[in-house]
């Protein structure tokens, strides 16, 4: 049991994530006036877009933001596979989806207008997901 306590303390002191031991990093990073989020927008054949909230579809898709933030470091096949998985998930909620746009959204939290930020968010396309995989930013789906 001494070994367990030592491991618990070491993991906590040195921020090691050795699940089920952990570094206990909860909201420990400093937040700033500009924040970044990841949003998914489903596009149908007519070109209409609607936001997809993956957390409401299934817990299996809750890691969208974390995977999307590391998208640039993934290989081509890994990006294609992630895209097809997200597209499949979006279609469970909206069957007519032909493409899924993944945007990085920069939000200025201040100043405020009522309950929301006063300035509209700035969007940058991370990728567009189609049946053939991940399209580079700026490429239009076929």
């Amino acid at each position, binding site marked *: 049991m001494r070994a367990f306590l030592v491991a618990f303390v070491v993991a906590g002191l040195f921020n090691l994530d050795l699940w089920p031991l952990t570094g206990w990093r909860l909201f420990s990073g*400093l937040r700033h006036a500009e924040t970044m989020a990841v949003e998914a927008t489903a596009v149908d054949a007519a070109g209409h877009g609607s936001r997809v909230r993956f957390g409401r579809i299934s817990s299996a898709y809750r890691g969208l933001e974390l995977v999307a933030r590391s998208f640039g470091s993934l290989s081509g096949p890994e990006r294609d596979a992630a895209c097809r998985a997200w597209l499949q998930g979006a279609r469970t909620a909206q069957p007519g989806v032909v493409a899924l746009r993944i945007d990085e959204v920069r939000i200025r939290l201040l100043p405020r207008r009522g309950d929301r930020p006063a300035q509209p968010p700035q969007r940058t396309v991370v990728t567009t997901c189609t049946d053939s995989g991940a399209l580079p930013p700026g490429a239009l789906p076929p």
Partner: protein
Amino acid sequence: MSRVERWLFAPGDPRRLAAVRIGLCSVLALRLLRDVYVELAGQDPALFRPVSFMRLLPGMPPRGLVMALQVAGVAAAVLAAVGLRSRLTLPLAWGCGALLLGMASSLGKVAHNDVIVLACLIPLLAAPVGEAWSVDAALARRARNPSLHTPARHGWPVRTAMVVVAGAYFFTGLAKLVLSGPAWVLTDNMRFILYADSDARAVPNEVALFIADRPWLAHAVAAATLLLEVTFPLVLWRPRAAWLYVPGAILLHAGIFLAMRLDYWAWVATLLVVFVDWPAVADRLGSRAGRPAPLTIPASPP
């Protein structure tokens, strides 16, 4: 033996250990009853972000295996809670829980709500948890075969669990100080945490906005949070401090739920299970009801 070890290995009440067994196994059973594991099962491997031993797997376990683990885990946790063959059922429940709860942490982010339950159960895995308030103890008394035990064996598992809970709060606060320093309190950090969370939701969170719109209040909340976390270990040296820190921590988690809809009920339950002297509560309730104090297994054979 150092002072810390003398405290850690001091004798304890087998009923207190049993209360921790009952409480933590009940929390574990409830956590394993959720349908999130079946949702996670069969997740596309492209989205799998494993932690720790989960990296040995190519992806989330298949649905059939997950359902079998849930049934086995919940059954074992319930049996361990009632104290039937707890030397077997508790480790089985823990093993099933480690895999299932590991799935929930393999989306790219550790689920800390589950970690504290599993971590507090670790010292119980090798402890005589079934010698009081258990089916095994009742069967042993009926067979006129009370287990031979010494009080020294019942203290360290409970105190180790206390160290885990206190350490969890302390390291949470320490990480804030190490990574952000005093700026975690002195800047608009708390306001930005609350604004960002509210803005990410379809419906704004009025509690979060009430705090974030008042800088003085946001700074006070941040300061109180950090103070509670980094000083929580005081309860290990001054048990009476638990009367302040346990309600304070409950208030913290309640505030987090109201402001950010983050559900840490398992953490709150673990806190109460580990730090409340449940045998004393039971004795007090029993004396009020006019019943004699409950029987305990004698410390030495008759």
